[in-house]
């Protein structure tokens, strides 16, 4: 376990915690961006350069901006009067803690069986491109159809209908 890993893990977890604990929704979106950046750096630390840069482009470049747009369009930055947490928040917290307990227990139980340090794989973008249009061409086509359908669907859902047209 390297020193860099601990720094990146602390950054990511702190960003995630801040994203769900802060009161102001815009601050939550900024903390979410920090968590995404920490995850991208963890991907780079894992020698997955392509996935790391895809994470930066898609999440920091697109999803975080979309979240900020949605917050500003829905006046979500105003703190509600009844607090930011739901009435049943202890139940949700207990479920999340139970899930973490089970996952952490499973990871620690299987830790001796997990593979030790492996040599860093050398993966070029050319190899990824050839895999995308060779072995994984069907998922690639399905993703293309899904993204087109999602784009059209999002526009149709969010389009502003005039009252008299209904």
């Amino acid at each position: 376990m390297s020193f860099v890993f601990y720094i990146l893990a602390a950054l990511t977890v702190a960003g995630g915690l801040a994203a769900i604990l802060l009161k102001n929704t815009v601050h939550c979106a900024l903390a979410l961006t920090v968590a995404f950046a920490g995850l991208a750096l963890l991907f780079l630390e894992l020698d997955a350069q392509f996935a790391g840069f895809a994470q930066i482009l898609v999440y920091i470049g697109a999803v975080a901006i979309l979240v900020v747009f949605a917050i500003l369009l829905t006046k979500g930055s105003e703190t509600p009067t009844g607090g930011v947490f739901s009435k049943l928040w202890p139940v949700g917290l207990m479920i999340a803690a139970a899930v973490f307990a089970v996952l952490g227990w499973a990871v620690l139980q299987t830790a001796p069986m997990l593979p030790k340090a492996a040599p860093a794989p050398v993966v070029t973008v050319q190899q990824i491109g050839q895999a995308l249009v060779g072995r994984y061409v069907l998922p690639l086509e399905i993703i293309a159809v899904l993204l087109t359908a999602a784009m059209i669907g999002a526009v149709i859902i969010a389009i502003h209908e005039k009252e008299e047209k209904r």
Partner: protein
Amino acid sequence: MTPLSGYLLVAALLFSIGLAGALTRRNAILVLIGIELMLNAANLNLIAFWRYGPHPELLTGMMFAIFSIAVAAAEAAVGLGLVIQIHRHAKTTDLDAMNRMKG
């Protein structure tokens, strides 16, 4: 502790944080943020297993993570479009206030 179990623990912690956010926050956008955190935690698991697995040259885990990123982007676009439309209709994004299925 092996490096792989460290990454798995971070992913488990991030997943639980996202789940807690999705279950406890009242704002619908914050629930979507929690779901994004959970998807990202799953991606971290995929990349970590790809890196320390037996055949990284086959790129299986990496491809899965890349497709998962694309699906998450589509999910975010449709989800936030739905939130904007619900806000236009019900004038709120507070999930505790949305207690009717009838428009």
